[in-house]
């Protein structure tokens, strides 16, 4: 093992994954969101890009065309790649592949989220990696999996929720399927892949065996609606979207005094409903036959929504949520992003961490979500600039001479700038 990069190591307490090295071939969101979880925990994640195959997220910057080195300034990329290192290696060249396999030999895991056939075309499939490192853990994240009659399909994040059935049960009642605003299949698969990699690591510690983990993003999302799969087998009903409502609770979102500012309120038991009625100044409602019991309330939810809505329209979303919570009723403001970043709860928990980056400047990003009491994680390494750690990987890790490194750049195996036309 080489010396770690000076000045970038965390202080005293040993992070859970210190000493674990990950070769990260993933791009866009699914793979990088998964390796970010492991990087946050202290794994040494080395992200590989090349001039002709670099992370598309670097191109989604919205800063206009002229800004210098814009590929280092995209927040979408930078949030998802903090705590990682970046090195360029063109895996489509013989020399690039050879060096990548040398990195495999000194790594614990390799992550890839290429289309199903790409890793084979690069001659870097599991058997090739295992020849370089018998204990290697390979995590592959193709959308449809590597086998089966539809494995040639190409899909992105919102496609995954369409395939998985989630879109079919999301929507305003009676209005057909609705998409998530985010490419939800991506972070879902990423979180599963990171956890599965840890399971494989525990398994390797016990048995000495590595393995090839496959996270088919489509499959990885079906479990999130597993109760609909079983329910269908009971009653043949496809499962209709309930919108903001619930199978047994009475709940909804209500517009507050400021237009398009909303509060979510949800009441289940009779006691919770009585408390809700107290908050809105209508202690008479539990005595109203329309609202006297769980079943009646369900049948008269439209009327109830109007009553709660009239109350909410006189309050701010924060006052409304606090009043409900003070009485023991589930409620929360429907936070818009600017408000979310000011929210006192996340502020008090130290959720936002300031990061300073040589090209992109200083701003706040979300901190690690896995909150460990003895080994707290933080943003300790700023998001890597394109090719930022070439020298560290090539010289310090792989032991190449300055002349070798210059030759690699000359041959285009490594690079200092991406080919800008790739993601125009």
């Amino acid at each position: 093992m080489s010396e770690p990069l000076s000045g970038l190591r965390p202080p005293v307490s040993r992070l859970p994954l210190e000493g674990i090295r990950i070769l990260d071939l993933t791009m866009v969101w699914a793979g990088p969101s998964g390796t970010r979880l492991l990087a946050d925990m202290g794994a040494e994640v080395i992200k590989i890009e090349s001039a002709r195959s670099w992370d598309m997220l670097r191109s989604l910057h919205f800063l206009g065309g002229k800004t210098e080195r814009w590929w280092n300034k995209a927040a979408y990329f930078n949030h998802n790649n903090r705590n990682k290192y970046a090195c360029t290696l063109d895996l489509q060249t013989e020399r690039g592949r050879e060096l990548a396999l040398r990195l495999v030999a000194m790594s614990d895991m390799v992550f890839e989220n290429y289309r199903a056939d790409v890793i084979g075309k690069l001659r870097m499939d599991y058997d090739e990696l295992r020849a370089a490192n018998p204990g290697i853990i390979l995590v592959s994240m193709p959308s449809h999996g590597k086998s089966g009659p539809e494995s040639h399909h190409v899909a992105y994040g919102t496609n995954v929720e369409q395939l998985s059935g989630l879109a079919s049960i999301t929507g305003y009642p009676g209005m057909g399927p609705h998409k998530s605003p985010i490419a939800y299949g991506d972070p879902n698969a990423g979180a599963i892949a990171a956890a599965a990699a840890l399971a494989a690591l525990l398994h390797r510690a016990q048995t000495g065996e590595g393995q090839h983990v496959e996270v088919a993003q489509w499959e990885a999302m079906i479990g999130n609606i597993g109760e609909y799969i079983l329910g269908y087998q009971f009653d043949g009903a496809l499962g209709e979207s309930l919108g903001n409502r619930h199978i047994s609770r009475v709940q909804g979102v209500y517009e507050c005094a400021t237009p398009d500012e909303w509060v979510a309120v949800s009441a289940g038991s009779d006691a919770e409903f009585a408390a809700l009625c107290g908050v809105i100044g209508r202690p008479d409602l539990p005595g109203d036959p329309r609202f006297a019991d769980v079943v009646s309330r369900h049948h008269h939810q439209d009327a109830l929504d109007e009553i709660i809505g009239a109350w909410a329209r006189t309050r701010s979303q924060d006052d409304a949520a606090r009043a409900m919570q003070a009485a023991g009723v589930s409620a929360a403001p429907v936070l818009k992003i600017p408000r979310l970043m000011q929210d006192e709860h996340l502020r008090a928990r130290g959720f936002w961490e300031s990061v300073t980056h040589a090209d992109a400047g200083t701003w706040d990003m979300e901190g690690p979500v896995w909150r460990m009491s003895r080994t707290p994680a933080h943003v300790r390494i700023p998001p890597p600039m394109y090719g930022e750690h070439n020298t560290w990987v090539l010289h310090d890790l792989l032991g190449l001479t300055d002349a070798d490194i210059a030759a690699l750049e000359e041959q285009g195996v490594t690079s200092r700038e991406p080919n800008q036309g790739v993601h125009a």
Partner: protein
Amino acid sequence: MTAPLHGIRILDLTSGVGGPWCTKLLADYGADVIKVERPGVGDESRGHGRFPGGVPHREKSALFLWLNTSKRGITLDIETATGRALMLRLAATCDAVVHDSRPSEVARLGLSHDVFAARNPRIVTTSITAFGQSGPYADWRATNITSYAAGGQHYLTGDADREPLQNGGYQAEYQAGTWSFGATLAAIWNARETGAGQQAEVAGMEVQAAILEIYLPDFAYRKSEVLTTRRGNFSSAVVGIYPAIDGHVGVHAMPKNWPQLIDALDAQWMAADERFVDNRARLRNDDDLSAQLYIWSAGLTKQQAYERAGRFRAPIMPVNTVADLLESEHLQTRDFFREIEHPVAGTMRYPHPPARMPSTPPEPRPAPLLGQHNAEVYGELLDLAPRDLALLSSAGGI
């Protein structure tokens, strides 16, 4: 091969969705998960349904059956002195305790990490709640919708001229469970390396705030509110859901997929049309592009559109229903659905765990009946005899 989590034992104090999903994942990959339920009542999801014929039965709730596979189930009233003593003895044999209690409940029930660590310094205590164990909202009551609302995704979901929309099922809860699954394993790995456990805490609100795609990063960096509003079913013409003859199809094309997209649409003329000549032009003429996709999709079945997309490798997918999934040839070829026989609810097809690991135990076990493994677990781990169990049972402890 041995199961990946063989030899790891978990004491599961959770109920509902998020916690049980976390421990189900641990169990499906081979951990010995001991699920604790309240005597006579059990997990709240036992009452949730759906039920065969619509008739409630605590052993036949789809939500419970799905979220509790491969676990061993015991009953134990942890609010009694006897129950608490047994819980602590069980925890001392475990790698992790997983609970879903707010701070006030943690205090009332005595579930803090220190309590468990005093008897077992290597233990991991995983806490899965909506708002975490600290901060002004930590004791707030929560359901799936409150996490979805507070975490920022709710406001972004739905149509601009309507109310924010919750997505289907219990996604905020499932997501918190998935992230807790990983956090628990990271802490167990660390405990095995160092001999010291710790608390691993996951807050549903923070999970949601961390998965806001480009929307949160862009605002955090540029302070522009351009990407902070609801945009309905279309992020753009090429990222959205369109009607088909027998349902809907979804398109999610990046700029580099444009040639494949127009091949799939059999509309090569669009390559030369100045409205669509590059990404910038296409965004300017988003409605025209949307019209072309609408005309195309409305004339095909979901399957026809999907097959054509596959032939040209264009990112267009069917909006599958659960019936489509159970009939999918692709998923069948991959043995995705596995039959599990449950002694009361019968045999059904269950989705495979989300990651394929060669070392996954091949045969999942059905969710436990209420108290099904009392004799086995208390006998094996605490050396209690059947007579002792009868005592506990008659006192209402188990």
